[in-house]
Every structure is written in structure tokens, then in C-alpha cells.
């Protein structure tokens, strides 16, 4: 309990934007800088060891690999923000994918626009149901979703094996298959990326302007400009990577459809978390549920909502998963959920609730994909891959815990 801080600081309520940023950094909102630097170090290392790494073909492949981690991590972040966890998310998403694949199959012949939404509906319903049990019976999410981890795998195996196709159901339908394996044309890639950048930069600039117009602290203009230029450059580099012909026998160019799916989920998730009451309440509940309850927030409603969002996001992830594997088998990688949580935490989301952003899923997913992709390229054994991922996760969790300690001052 120290009383010094208050008398020591100068009494001023203005001009704190930049200093506030620094303070937040120290408090544990460490920002994306450290992990981005880590990512760059990884990239440089793998490129030195094998120059294929930075080829456009491999990078596109890396982005697609990352997509599944990114989407599952997004699903997980909804709950991590509440201080909850969903261990079943991997099998739930695979179960959604199974639904889609079976319905699109020769036997049922559902059109994609009916089968894909229904698959997402199934995972959303599962997420809602698990959330309902956790909230109504006041059970720990860890245990209920651990039951889910086992139970949904059983359901998955049951349905896949019942098809009598030898434990694997291939995707034959074009739209689902094309999610990962077809590309926007180079022109549409340009249009899509530039449109996204235009919207993003417009939002950033407008926010700064309206803050200035209202006489509030805003970051200096050069920071805004630097941010916009960085985004623009990053976007253009991305387009150049995707639009380079990476085919050997045929022309293969443009952005895989999976990437816009990622971006749409990122945009929607970030919007809900930062611009709506629901998002604000999810943070508040994760920070101090009792405070939220006393402030009149219907805590259980918003906790359930997070489970609904997790189920929905898991459904989208499942479709990408099935598309990438070209089918669904009764042997789904049970590490998926662990890698999803790892992605979220490596990106900067706290395991203890209340701190995290959707963009963390993207950064963390890219880190995990980079490790797997790069290690495969330099022929490292599976053993080494696991150990390396474990070390990265451990470092990320340790940083999270240290940051958490830093953010709670002695009182």
C-alpha cells in the first residue's frame, strides 16, 4: 500500500495520450510490438535456413495454414476474455464441418448456401448448449468443455464412420472445396485489399479528427500518418505476394478465399468487442464480474452470448478445416484446441480474463503457422516442432503472468 503516486504526479488531465500509451505498455497492455518482432526474427531465421520460405507459394500456403489457427483462436478469445476456456472447440468445429460435408455429399445434395449455414448453426447450438450448462449449473467451463472434448469426438467418429467411406468423407462440392483451394483473381485481390485498407484508414483518421474536434487528447498527427502508411505498405506487399504466379504447370495466383473469411471475422469480432455494449460488458465481466453485476449488467446473458460467438466462430473454422484437408476424417487432430489457445495467448490475450483483442488471434496464429511451416521446410522432426511450440507458448504465458502482476498495483 503506497500513497506516493498521487502526490507525486502533476495534476493535469490533458496531453496524456502519448504518455498514456507508454503507461499502458508498462501495465501489461504490451501491444503487438514484441510479438511482431518475434515473428520477424522467426521469419529471418527460416529464410536463412531455407530460401523457399519467403517464396510467394510458401507464404500463401503459410497464410492458409494459419487460417485454421486464427479462426479457432478467435473462437477461444471470446471465452478467454471472460476468464473461461473451451477445450472442445476443435472437435466442435470438426463436427460442424462433418455436418456440411455430409449434407453436401452425393447422398443429400444440399446446395452450399443451405449446408454451410446449417453447419455453422450446429456449432453455434453446441456452443450455446455448453454455455447454458456452465452458466445455469455454475460448473467450471474447463470441466464441461473437457467433457465436450471427449463427447464430441465420439459423436464425430460415429457420424463419419456411419457414412461407410472408410473413416474419411471427401469434399466434392466446389464452394466448400474452393474456400481454401480457389483464389480471387489478381484484380479482385487488389480491389478487396485496397477497399479494406481504405475503410480501415478512414476509420482511424476519422476517429482522430473527431477527438481533436471535441478537444480531447489524440495521438500526434504524424503517428496517425505513420500508421496509415504502414498499413498501406503491408497491404500492398500482401497483394504482391498473393498475386505472383505460384503455379508450376498452371497459372496459380490471387488471394485464397480463406483470407477474406479471416478478415471478415476479424472485423466483425473487433467491432463487437470495441464498439458495442456487448463487447464492453464481456471485458467488464472478465475484469470484475461482481462490479459488472452491480453496475446493472446482466452478467449471465453476456456470458452466454460469448459462448454463442465461440460456437459460431468454431463453425466457420470447421469449414476452412474441411476445405483445407479436402474432407473430414474420424481422426481429427486433438492438438487443434491447444494450438488455438496457444495462438490467442501468444498474440497477447490473457488466460486470466479481461485482456485481449481479436487481432491477437491473427498474430498468434501466424506465429504458430510460421513455426510449423518453417520447421517442416528445414526438415526438423515432429519432436522438435512440438518442443519449439511448447517453448513459445511457455514464454507467452509467462509474459502474460508478468504483465498481469504489473497491471495490479499495490493497494
Amino acid at each position, binding site marked *: 500500500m503506497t*500513497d506516493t503516486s498521487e502526490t507525486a504526479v502533476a495534476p493535469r488531465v490533458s496531453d*496524456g*495520450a502519448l*504518455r498514456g500509451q507508454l*503507461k499502458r505498455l508498462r501495465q501489461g497492455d504490451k501491444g503487438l510490438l514484441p510479438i511482431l518482432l518475434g515473428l520477424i526474427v522467426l521469419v529471418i531465421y527460416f529464410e536463412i535456413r531455407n530460401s523457399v520460405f519467403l517464396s510467394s507459394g510458401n507464404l500463401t500456403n503459410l497464410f492458409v495454414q494459419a487460417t485454421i489457427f486464427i479462426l479457432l483462436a478467435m473462437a477461444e478469445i471470446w471465452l478467454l476474455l471472460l476468464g473461461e476456456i473451451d477445450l472442445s472447440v476443435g472437435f466442435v468445429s470438426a463436427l460442424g464441418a462433418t455436418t456440411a460435408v455430409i449434407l453436401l455429399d452425393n447422398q443429400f445434395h444440399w446446395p452450399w448456401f443451405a449446408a454451410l449455414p446449417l453447419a455453422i448453426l450446429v456449432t453455434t447450438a453446441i456452443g450455446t448448449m455448453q454455455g447454458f450448462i456452465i452458466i445455469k449449473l455454475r460448473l467450471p467451463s474447463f470441466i464441461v468443455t473437457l467433457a465436450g472434448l471427449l463427447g464430441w469426438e465420439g459423436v464425430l467418429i460415429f457420424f463419419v464412420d456411419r457414412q461407410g467411406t472408410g473413416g474419411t468423407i471427401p469434399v466434392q462440392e466446389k464452394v466448400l472445396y474452393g474456400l481454401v483451394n480457389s483464389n480471387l483473381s489478381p484484380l479482385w485481390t487488389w480491389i478487396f485489399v485496397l477497399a479494406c485498407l481504405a475503410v480501415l484508414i478512414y476509420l482511424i483518421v476519422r476517429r482522430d479528427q473527431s477527438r481533436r474536434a471535441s478537444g480531447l487528447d489524440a495521438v500526434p498527427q504524424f503517428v496517425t500518418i505513420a500508421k496509415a502508411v504502414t498499413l498501406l505498405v503491408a497491404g500492398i506487399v500482401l497483394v504482391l505476394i498473393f498475386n505472383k504466379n505460384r503455379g508450376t504447370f498452371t497459372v496459380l495466383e490471387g488471394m485464397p478465399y480463406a483470407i477474406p473469411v479471416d478478415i471478415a471475422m476479424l472485423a466483425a469480432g473487433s467491432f463487437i468487442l470495441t464498439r458495442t*455494449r456487448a463487447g464492453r460488458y464481456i471485458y*467488464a465481466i472478465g475484469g*470484475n464480474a461482481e462490479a459488472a453485476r452491480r453496475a446493472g449488467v446482466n452478467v449471465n446473458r453476456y456470458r452466454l452470448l460469448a459462448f454463442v460467438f465461440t460456437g459460431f466462430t468454431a463453425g466457420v473454422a470447421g469449414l476452412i478445416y474441411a476445405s483445407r484437408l479436402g474432407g473430414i476424417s474420424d481422426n481429427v487432430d486433438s492438438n487443434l484446441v491447444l494450438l488455438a489457445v496457444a495462438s490467442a495467448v501468444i498474440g497477447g490475450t490473457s488466460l486470466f480474463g479481461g485482456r485481449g483483442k481479436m487481432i491477437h488471434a491473427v498474430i498468434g496464429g501466424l506465429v504458430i503457422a510460421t513455426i510449423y511451416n518453417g520447421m517442416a521446410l528445414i526438415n526438423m522432426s515432429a519432436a522438435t516442432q512440438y518442443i519449439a511450440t511448447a517453448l513459445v507458448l511457455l514464454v507467452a504465458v509467462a509474459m502474460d503472468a508478468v504483465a498481469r502482476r504489473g*497491471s495490479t*498495483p499495490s493497494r
Partner: protein
Amino acid sequence: MATTPESTSPNTPPNGVSVSGDSGAAPSALLSLRGITKSFGAVEALKHVDLDIPAGEVTALIGDNGAGKSTLIKAIAGIYAPTSGEIFWEGRKVNLHTPRDAENLGIATVYQDLALCDNLDIVQNMYLGHEESRHLTLDEIKMELNTKRVLSELSVSTVQSVRQLVGSLSGGQRQAIAVARAVMHESKLVIMDEPTAALGVSQTAQVLDLIKRLASRGIAVLVISHNLVDVFEVADRIAVMYLGNLVSSGPAANYDTSSAVEIITTGGSRADAAASFK
């Protein structure tokens, strides 16, 4: 009865809206409790409590542990419905069944543990549960401007930025934010449970200052405190509880530390206490 300025006998029948027989002549009360009783099973935590809380004044509620102070403020805050008795708000009889009922009347409670979210910034905490929105999205600018206005009106000047996370604030600053939040929603009565309990010397002074400023703005303040120095520093009126009874109340000027201590520990003068236990 020499040390007891005026003793409201716990068994005085409720006398309706009219101001109770305090010789201190309380100004027309914002909130009046008449015959409030609260039982938990066989235990009577509150026994026929009568209390008037006037606007624009600081009323200190004092008493030993287990005297019923917390139960009383929970009844006012709508957390416990009283077993019997009546509550009058601005002369009108009201029922307070939920915290929302109390909040809608203009009763705000600042709890001892403050109920702030460390992971949210000052603006987000100030507006938690009452967010302003525009076109379906949160209106951050309006909320930030209002927060700055309220903080400067209350002369809370020690925070660097209203976008600072509350987790980074000192105890006194957190208390100030919790109070400012209570005031911001047009509250007429602010209840504070041990506002200075965890604070150092300079922060205590700041919070006491803040309490006085609230009263000078016409807000009624009800403060629970164990610290008699603080109580005599800020209170305009004092009410003493003893074993579920409100044994004494009146203007703070009628009490001094030794008389207050005696009432807290014995429930009245020694003679009274002896009488009540015979």
C-alpha cells in the same frame, strides 16, 4: 442521558412522513426510514430503525461491528427488502426491492470494495452499465467529455488521463472514480461504505474533501465509518447504531469523541445500558 444529545427510542411508533422529533430539527428529509426491521430467520439485524437523511448534508452512520450498519445501507440500496417498516423518498412512500429501484430514485452506493473493473479505463468504468451510444455503437467521445467534466467539477485533478486503466490508479484515485461514477448519474443520495478505510493520510484528506463537495452541491451523503476522526471532520449529522437499534442521532455538534465512543460501545449512557439489560 447527559452524554446522549437526543435519543430516538427504538420503540417510537412510526410517525409517517413528518419529520421525526429530533431536537436538532433536521431539514426536510430527502429519505426517511420509519420502523425499519429486518430479520434473518430468528435474528433481528435491524430493530425498528427510524432515520432521516436530509439533502445537502453528510450523515455519518457509526457503530461497532455487527451493529447493523451494513444491513441498514443494504436496505436503502435495495439489496435487502426490509421485513417491515416504511421508506419515504422526498415525502413519498417507496418500495425498494432491487438495486435498480434505488438507482432509479437517485440512490447510489459506493461499496467498500469499490466495484471497479481494473482492466477498463476510467471512462469505461464511469459509464459501465450506462453507456452512451449513437447509431448502435458506443459514443466514446461523449462519454469521455462527460467524464472529464464530472471529474473537474468534483475537482478530481490527480489523474493524468481519463483513458488510463483503473488498475493503475492509487487507492484514493479509485475511491474518487467510484464516487464520481455515483454522482454522474444524477444521484441525490450517495451512500459510502467505509470510504477511507484503506487509504493513507493525504488520500483520506482528498476523499473527505470530495465528500464535503458532494454535500455542498446539495447531494445527501450517508457515510459509514469506523474512524471517528474522519466522521467528526465531515459529518453534519451523526447516527449511532447499537445491536440493531438506532440509539442516537442528531447534529454532529452535539457529540464529541468520548460521548460517541460511549454510545457505540454501550448503546447509550451507562445508565441507559444498564437499564436496557436489566
